[in-house]
């Protein structure tokens, strides 16, 4: 039986990133994926026979440009196009548009409030500062403050120097920023509700918190740290859907000599004497490997794939308490034609970006209250996008596709499992909200695919449908992610590593966990990491 150097459980974007780097380091790497396709939550599928679409994740802006370059993803077909607009439609029939161009965006704010337009410059500067502070930490392993290993001390020193570079006032501001709610943070800049509602989005998307929860200002960074062609904070769209990213990764991996096996679900990680020896597939086949990297989330890895007898009880206890509450759903809609939004000026570029129908922070927070009570919201928060406006190749001429990210959507409905009827009722709230702003919308729907946390878990394998493989709260960041003492991609089992978003720096299609995990593996193997670019400042 072949002995692989590395087998990677799950071909999500992080698994593939790690696979690429390890293969390029001269290791013999196998990726095993349960689905018939690779990509995890970053995939393009077919909806109706003539529409290609991103079925889960839908925005490409966080993916680290260092990785993109190292792995030559553009050569393997990845092309990212920036959003060209966006808008919030208000209940009163008005709108707030967004523009890529800062000055144009500012002018749009001025339509509501001259003061807010002024404040927008300050806001953009302050948020960019926070990004600049955090960005270099993404492609680094988080130091363990309770270890005295030289490398941890050295990394702590790096962190201390980063902090030391801040002026006292900036340090104080940073400490506030990390602990504030996005609502309070925005209140310090803006007076117009719809502007705050528009900007609050980034503080909560994918997060089981409301905009009024402390810590959500930090989450903002997870949606702001990206860049599209050097335009920081811009949101982009991957031509051909999010699958273009993972297909480019797969292609880059295979070009380097790597092997992918699809339709191969891993049933367990084989452990003997505290060391992993490979994996056992669902059909009983054994795949032997010196090292195993799990792209599955921390709960799936340790509560399903590894025999609990192999794990120290305190570790297991922490894994059980790791918070992975699903908070979002997705409704993918194939449309017969471009929907009308009468509130928008004709020919507006606003439709070429994200559309929101929630015009106050309070409405977002109330939707969160529904989630807390175990219900989907009757007035959900939508981040809708019609990618066919940017990429006509996705659908037949005249046909369109609309991606609706829906927040909040609970992993269980008032404590019980989702039923199909629940799912349909959930979808109906989404369609009815859009139809309020787009007459005739219902008639244009050709096909609809609804993903609640139940579907996300079943198809992608995300526990409770949590798209970040674990909440981004302080207790689950940096050296706490996923388990204090095991935040450096290694696990209590020798030879078994984690490389998914359950690890630092967390979720979003960033590729950083896969990159960092690969770096740790190469460190352990004492192999060169020359082909891994260090983080560079894009700001």
């Amino acid at each position, binding site marked *: 039986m072949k002995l692989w150097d590395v087998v990677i459980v799950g071909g999500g974007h992080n698994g593939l990133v790690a696979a690429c780097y390890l293969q390029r380091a001269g290791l013999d790497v196998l990726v095993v994926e349960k689905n018939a396709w690779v990509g995890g939550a970053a995939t393009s599928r077919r909806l109706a026979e003539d529409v290609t679409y991103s079925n889960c994740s839908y925005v490409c802006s966080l993916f680290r440009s260092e990785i993109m370059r190292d792995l030559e993803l553009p050569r393997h077909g990845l092309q990212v196009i920036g959003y060209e607009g966006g808008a919030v439609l208000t209940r009163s029939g008005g709108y707030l548009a967004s523009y890529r161009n800062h000055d144009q965006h500012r002018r749009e704010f001025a339509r509501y409030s001259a003061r807010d337009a002024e404040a927008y410059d300050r806001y953009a500067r302050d948020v960019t500062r926070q990004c600049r502070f955090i960005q270099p930490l993404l492609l680094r392993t988080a130091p363990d403050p309770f270890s005295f290993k030289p490398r941890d001390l050295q990394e702590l020193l790096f962190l201390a120097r980063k902090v030391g570079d801040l002026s*006292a006032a900036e340090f*104080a501001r940073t400490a506030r920023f990390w602990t504030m709610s996005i609502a309070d943070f925005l209140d310090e800049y803006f007076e117009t509700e719809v502007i705050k509602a528009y900007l609050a989005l980034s503080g909560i998307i994918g997060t089981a918190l409301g905009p009024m929860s402390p810590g959500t200002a930090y989450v903002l960074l997870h949606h702001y740290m990206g860049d599209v062609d050097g335009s920081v904070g811009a949101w982009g769209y991957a031509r051909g859907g999010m699958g273009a990213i993972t297909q480019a990764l797969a292609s880059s991996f295979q070009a380097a000599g790597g092997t992918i096996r699809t339709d191969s679900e891993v049933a367990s990680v084989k452990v003997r004497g505290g060391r992993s020896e490979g994996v056992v597939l669902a059909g009983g086949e054994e795949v032997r490997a010196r090292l195993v990297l799990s792209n599955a989330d921390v709960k799936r890895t340790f509560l399903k794939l590894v025999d609990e007898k192999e794990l120290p009880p305190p570790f297991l206890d922490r894994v059980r308490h790791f918070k992975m509450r699903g908070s979002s759903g997705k409704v993918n809609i194939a449309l017969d034609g471009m929907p009308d939004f009468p509130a928008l000026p004709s020919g507006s570029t606003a439709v070429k970006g994200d559309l929101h129908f929630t015009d106050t922070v309070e409405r977002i927070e109330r939707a969160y209250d529904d989630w807390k009570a175990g219900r989907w919201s009757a007035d959900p928060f939508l981040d809708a996008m019609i990618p066919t406006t940017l990429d006509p190749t996705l659908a037949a001429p005249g046909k369109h596709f609309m991606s609706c990210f829906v927040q909040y959507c609970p992993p269980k409905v008032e404590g019980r499992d989702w039923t199909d009827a629940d799912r349909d009722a959930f979808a109906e709230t989404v369609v009815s909200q859009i139809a309020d702003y787009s007459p005739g919308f219902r008639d244009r729907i050709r096909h609809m695919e609804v993903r609640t946390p139940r579907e996300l878990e079943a198809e992608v394998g995300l526990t409770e449908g949590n798209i970040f493989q674990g909440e981004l709260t302080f207790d689950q960041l940096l050296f706490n992610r996923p388990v*204090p003492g095991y935040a450096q991609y290694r696990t209590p089992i020798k030879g078994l590593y984690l490389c998914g978003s359950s690890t630092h720096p967390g979720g979003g299609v960033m590729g950083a966990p896969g990159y960092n995990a690969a770096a740790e593996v190469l460190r352990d193997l004492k192999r060169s990491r020359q082909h891994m670019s260090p983080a560079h400042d894009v700001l």
Partner: protein
Amino acid sequence: MTSSNGKTSYDAVVIGGGHNGLVAAAMLGRAGRRVLLVEARDVLGGGAGTHVFHPGYKVNSLAHLMNRLAPEVERALGLDLADLGTSLAPTVALDPVRGPVVLGGAYGDSLSGVTPDEAGRFAALRALLMSQADLLARFLARPPPMPGELSLGDAVDLGKAAVALLKRGRSAGRDFARMLLTNIADVVDEHLDDDRLKGLLAFDATLGIHLGPRSPTSIVGLYYRLAGSCLGARGGQIVPRGGMGAVTAHLAAAARQAGVEIRTGAPVAAIAADRGRASGIVLPWGARIAAPLIVSAIHPVTTLRSLLPPGAIDIGLDRAVSHIRSRGDAAKLHLALDAVPAFVGVPAEAARGRLVVAPSVDHVERAFNPAKYGDFSPDPVIEITLPSLTDPTFAPRGGAVLSAIVQYAPYDLSGGWDARRDAFLETVLATLERHAPGLRGSIVGAELLLPPDIEAHFGMPGGHWHHGELQVDQMIFNRPAFGASGYETPVPGLYLASAGSHPGGGVSGLPGYNAARRALAKETAA
């Protein structure tokens, strides 16, 4: 005015006769300074006072428990507080259906009303929280460590805390780093089973704070509570004999003994600043009192934005001060009763303590939800004391006084409080009645202090008795705002000593103590 000898020049003027002002004044007086303390109201004590609210009935004005007057303050002022009480008061988590849980001693040294298993789990969690609160407590009786200018003392204290943490072992350290900014709901869900205990801890973490138990960082409120001590016991509390007014009287006596001159009924109209330096105060009738040192123990927003001449602080700080979140969520209800209320299942001895209505975490969270949108809780959470059981002089013979802190009652109520005051009162009374059947029939008088009333009566902007939200982003070097957080302000000679400064609210005396020490140290250095 209690005394006025017409002097117009002092070494120091303290603005505000609440507990922090009295402590600061006494400290300065004991250091040999000629000190004048001015208080706008006719009585001292601010929120830590006792007043008659119905003929024959007295009550503690806002604070109704003594649980954190700092030992450092007691020592520095030479206080002897034995007359206030010598045994700790219990806490009771009320539940009219399942019966109450009684936490005896200091925050549940002993526990009754739960299964032995649950008692064991609570003891473990209590020990964990206490040891963590202990680490934080060492940063209360000292100025906050300031970024960019860590003093040797700061470094030593931070180092000591780190050593103390490491001594407990790596896993204790990791637990602490993980739990420090988490939410209380997840912590209690992880450790406990009993909803009554969980609800109590959720309540204690969020009392006086605009957060629900599921809000990240809400555990900090519980740490803050447990970092306080009483009768030498961390987490201990008493319902003081003589009321909080007696505590204030002790502080006032210490101040007078230290030579402090106290003038009540003397509001301050302005702080005079000559060439950017604090030089005295101006009274509303134009009289000017000169002093090179002004210690303001009133709300920092009032001090920095209303009393200082325009331009005294720069735009950046002014903006930061204008952003201080300081809108109270807690109301105070006082009831004069002609009979001692009987809370379901609560033994007479336990009724002397603190009774809490917060039957589950979800209940507290649901009570918080409407506060986010400017509505009061339809099913509020409540902390009750019956001070007349400790001190019979508070009510006529046979009667009783009920003092309740009710949450959530937001300062800015949509529709305005005038129109909805009665509806809120009805909600609270109905809730109390469920826990103490027959209570409503024994009411002979009532006083409801809503956040706007608290603002008006006690001069606390927003009716927030912590003088600003006690949330992490408004703590330590960001309390009240960076640039004015080490008690000093950009105006030389002007110091901030209210609960709006580090470490924050509660009747600890520490902001006053720390501010006075900082002012004295600065003088010595100059």
